[in-house]
């Protein structure tokens, strides 16, 4: 029973990792850049939700929508202002750029007087409720995380599979030049992908907020999402979620069964093993350059 309990806690945590990793993968597939700011965008999303609920007094559902919309707009703007001008530069510069954006976001949040440096509680309607199901004690917050992730994944799947927009995104992520020749507005799509990634980050932030509280450094959890993305393969959307779940479960189990200290590094040990065994991840495509 305890094992199942731990696995469920791990899955809930893994869903958060997976959602952040989903952002990495979306952006990576579209623009071949790895966004180190994803965790900080998530933090900003959580703060956005907090601002909507406590200061503007919006009801829960409205604040979620408002936050997602605001973050998507921010993602769109970020792509337009800083990412687009340097596309084509070495990947390394772009990584440094996103690290810089993350720094700015984190620092700017601490500058909000009286709010940025404090730890807050997000007053969600499902706070502190517990279900008892046949000996299992289920935390509703965790269940909401799992359910929303499942829902979101289905939505994204439908988007990418059946909508014109999603298919265009797939095409441009496979071959930008060919997509461009087919009349797909690649640049505008890249902006939309950033918006989508920021929106997903906002959802992750709001889902995580009741579990870990809202504070300026909550974005550091994004560093655990990298292993998730790598384990799943950086270029695979389902891989991100699966990778997140693997990392979450491993972390949860190693926190209980292994000595102190392993919980924090379990994700990184998994990713190192993964890189040695299967450098492209579970679902990543293996491509070699041909001359």
């Amino acid at each position, binding site marked *: 029973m305890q094992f199942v309990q731990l696995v469920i806690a791990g899955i809930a945590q893994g869903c958060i990792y997976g959602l952040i990793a989903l952002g990495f993968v979306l952006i*990576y597939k579209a623009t*071949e850049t*790895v966004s180190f700011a994803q965790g900080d965008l998530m933090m900003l999303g959580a703060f956005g939700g907090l601002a909507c609920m406590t200061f503007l007094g919006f009801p829960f559902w409205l604040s979620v929508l408002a936050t997602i919309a605001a973050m998507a707009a921010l993602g769109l703007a970020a792509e337009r202002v*800083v990412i687009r*001008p*340097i*596309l*084509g*530069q*070495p*990947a*390394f*510069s*772009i*990584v*440094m*750029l996103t*690290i*810089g*954006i*993350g*720094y*700015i*976001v*984190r*620092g*700017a*949040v*601490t*500058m909000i*007087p009286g709010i*940025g*440096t404090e730890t807050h509680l997000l007053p969600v309607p499902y706070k502190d409720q517990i279900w008892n199901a046949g000996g299992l004690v289920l935390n509703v917050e965790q269940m909401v995380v799992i359910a929303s992730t499942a829902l979101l994944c289905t939505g994204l799947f439908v988007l990418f599979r059946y909508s014109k927009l999603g298919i265009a995104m797939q095409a441009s992520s496979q071959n*930008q*030049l060919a997509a461009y020749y087919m009349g797909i507005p690649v640049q505008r799509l890249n902006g939309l992908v950033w918006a989508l990634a920021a929106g997903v980050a906002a959802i992750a932030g709001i889902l995580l907020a009741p579990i870990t509280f809202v504070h*300026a450094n909550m974005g550091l959890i994004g*560093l655990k999402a*990298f*292993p998730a993305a*790598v384990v799943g393969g*950086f*270029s695979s959307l389902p891989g991100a979620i699966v990778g997140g779940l693997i990392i979450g479960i491993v972390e949860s189990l190693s926190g209980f069964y292994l000595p*102190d*200290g392993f919980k*924090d*590094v379990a*994700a*990184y*040990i998994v*990713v*190192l093993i993964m*890189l*040695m065994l299967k*450098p492209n991840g579970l679902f990543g495509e293996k*491509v*070699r*350059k041909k*001359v």
Partner: protein
Amino acid sequence: MRYLFRTDYAQDIRLAKHGGHLFWYGALLLVLALAPWLLPEYWLAQLTFVLIYGVVGLGLMVLAGFTGLFSLGHAAFLGVGAYTQAVLTNAGLPFPIALACAAGLSAAAGVVVGLPALRVKGIYLGMATLSFGFIIEEVFARWERVTGGNAGLSVRSPEMFGWAVDTATEFYALCLVITVACTLLILNLLRAPTGRAFVAIRDSEISAQSMGIHLAYYKTLSFAISAALAGVGGALYAHNLRFLSPDQFNLLQSIDLLLMVVIGGLGSIHGVFLGAIFLITMPQLISASKGWLPMVIADAPGLKSVIYGLALVLFVLFEPMGMYGRWLKLRTYLQLFPFYRKGLFKRQKSFQKSDRLK
């Protein structure tokens, strides 16, 4: 404008290209050697820090700037060097032997990390080094018998051949000698076949391979050299701070190191030292400017990270060659005055290159 009239092939690889180089670098060395008498004690300590970060940055520059592999866990190598030096010095070993061990152990760690580097590229390599960094940081915190864990470890002052280096001036001299030696070493390395091979790998792995460069060997070598220099820097860092704790070697330190080489200018030795100066003087400038800023901004704990982030974003957007690139432009402007054209250093517009197929 200076025109070099080449009469000899050896001229192309000479360290000092012309008399101007000799004069200016000689002057710089003289000023640095006289610094203990010229600068107040506080600024001498800052200068010592610049030299130490310079050594570490040289290592990272070889890896990131010249071989094109980037490491998000360089603080781990710094830490390995620092802890090795601390433990060995506390055990009573003389400075040179401890330093050699610190460099050697760091290099060994570098080889271990370099091994996955042979299989993975780009972001995956970043992940591997990032993970390594986290694991090493945890080892520092947990291996309490050797490292003292989170309680920290104090370090004795260096000692060699009956000479105890315990004043700030003596330590500065030691750092200066080591920094100059490391810089010359790297400059020599870069004009030798090894360095050329590194640069070839950076520019295109496939063409390097087809020119007969053994990728695995040179990539591992690059990691080893880079880690060894970080280890040397770490050893000096340990003596300078006299107290080590695991959180000095966390991810933020790694990112600071990367920031240093990027802001300084990737792919130039000058950039290392310019970046180190930036990294050391920036906190001073920030605290000096606090009186001018509104309370809300000045008191925010994130002020430093906002400024670092802004500097990083602005440099990547507008000056990808870093501070050294800016200096090159300024110098060219002065040399060509009044004939400098705006588009002289115009960045070539390139199409998006795919990393996936590299």
